[in-house]
């Protein structure tokens, strides 16, 4: 099993204009179904709390602090999730089941580098 990070960008939480209430509710139902499916199939690795849309960015040698991630809505990181899967192909297939594409979002699938476990110290 390998581990992957799903980086969600854009989607229902950033789309402009925001969807009407009923659409948000119906869309949420699809997310809970997808996330529930991942957990039941044993793919879920870590649960991180959800992200706010706003924040600060520290950048450059001057370590300038600016308000907010000034990305366009569709590029704004809207969430992260760690999953396990046999291969990147399987992970991509899992990502294809995400409902984020309904609102033109994207899922970046990034494998974690597998660091070998250190051998037990010789006696």
């Amino acid at each position, binding site marked *: 099993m390998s581990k992957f990070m799903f980086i969600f960008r854009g989607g229902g939480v950033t789309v402009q204009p925001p969807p*009407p*209430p009923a659409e*948000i*509710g119906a*869309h*949420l*139902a699809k997310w*809970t179904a997808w996330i529930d499916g991942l957990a039941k199939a044993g793919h879920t690795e870590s649960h991180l709390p*959800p992200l706010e849309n706003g924040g600060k960015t520290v950048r450059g040698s001057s370590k300038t602090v600016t308000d907010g991630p000034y990305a366009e809505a569709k590029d704004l990181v809207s969430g992260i999730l760690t999953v396990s899967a046999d291969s990147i192909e399987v992970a991509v297939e899992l990502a294809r089941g995400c409902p984020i594409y309904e609102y033109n979002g994207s899922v970046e699938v990034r494998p974690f580098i597998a660091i070998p476990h250190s051998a037990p110290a010789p006696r």
Partner: protein
Amino acid sequence: MSPRDEHALAVLFRQESGRLVAYLARFFGVADLATAEDIAQETLLAALQSWGEGLPSEPSAWLFSVAKNRARDVLRRRSVRKGNGAVALDSAELADETTHNTSDEDLLQMMFSCCHPSLTEDTQTALMLRLVCGFGTAEVASAFFSDPRAMEKRLVRAKKVLADEGKLFDVTTRQEANERQAAVMKAVYLMFDAGYHSSVAHEVVRSDVAAEAIRLAALLAESHATTGPVAHALAALTCLHGARLPARFAAGVLVPLEKQDRSAWDARLVALGMQHLAASATGSELTVFHLEAGIAAQHAAAGSVETTNWQEIVRLYDLLYARKATPVVALSRAIALARIFGPQTGIAEVLALEGRERLDAYPFYWAALGDLAIRAGDLAAARTWLSRGHETARTDPERDMFLRRLGDCGGAAS
């Protein structure tokens, strides 16, 4: 409720949106409904962001608490910008935790505010769907056969009227409520009508509109400032007609009363409607709502078309026509009359209706004539009338209804 149930969550979010806007309007006033709507919107998006792994145990409390925090932030920022320094917003209201007890009052206030006398009845209803019930502009537009952009303009203008009023309409006492109660009940009635009679593209939205009208009518019937025989009559009529909705559309096709599967009628709504009907009989006033509820009750209580008390229904229609002399009421009366005296009598009645020409564009006029002709064995006349009806049909379910009945009598008129 299963969190996977898309429709249940759609309804929850819509209703909570209305409750949030009504609650937030307390702090931002009618002059700044836009901010209230924005915060409600952001709150729902925060839920979308946070509830992926499942709903909190008390979704409504979660939403109100997020909304309250956001409202506090906005007010604080404004206060700082004005240089007020001290922030006067940990006021009793923002701090109070009793949002649940007061949210019905908030909804009532917003309902009454939407029924501003300088708005047309349709606009009052549309505004209520938008602000109190949380329907999106496109959904409101479809309930009124309107173009979404035209509806958006109408809603913007209507909100401007509310803003000019300066404050929410107070519904604490019966005296205050009286001033607009008739208009509010009419708006709820029209809302129900839009959900019951119109056959908008999305069947789900249509029945949701009717369900919202049932909810608001019940709120009026049960709130201390607005309750009374007439409010109960309105609640009764929405429940008793609403009970038939599950059978009225089968697989997207409009099913006439005599062909409806009565076991699919909502028994809970029938029972609730009968309770409201009993409670409506306490006053001396016999309103249009009473009569329409009485007619619906006759249908709800009958096991079949054959065992329906048509004499009583005709009597109620006569009383109704005396108060509401519209061709549609006359048409319904003629249809009931045909159940007693036969289809030929019905056809003669329908053709002799006062204001008949106003029904030319009304699909159910032609459907009624077609049905009566089929029952009278005059298939040629039925084909002619049903073909006329097919031309007037406004939506696919209506068109399907005519094509089906034309099929019953051997195809369209040549």
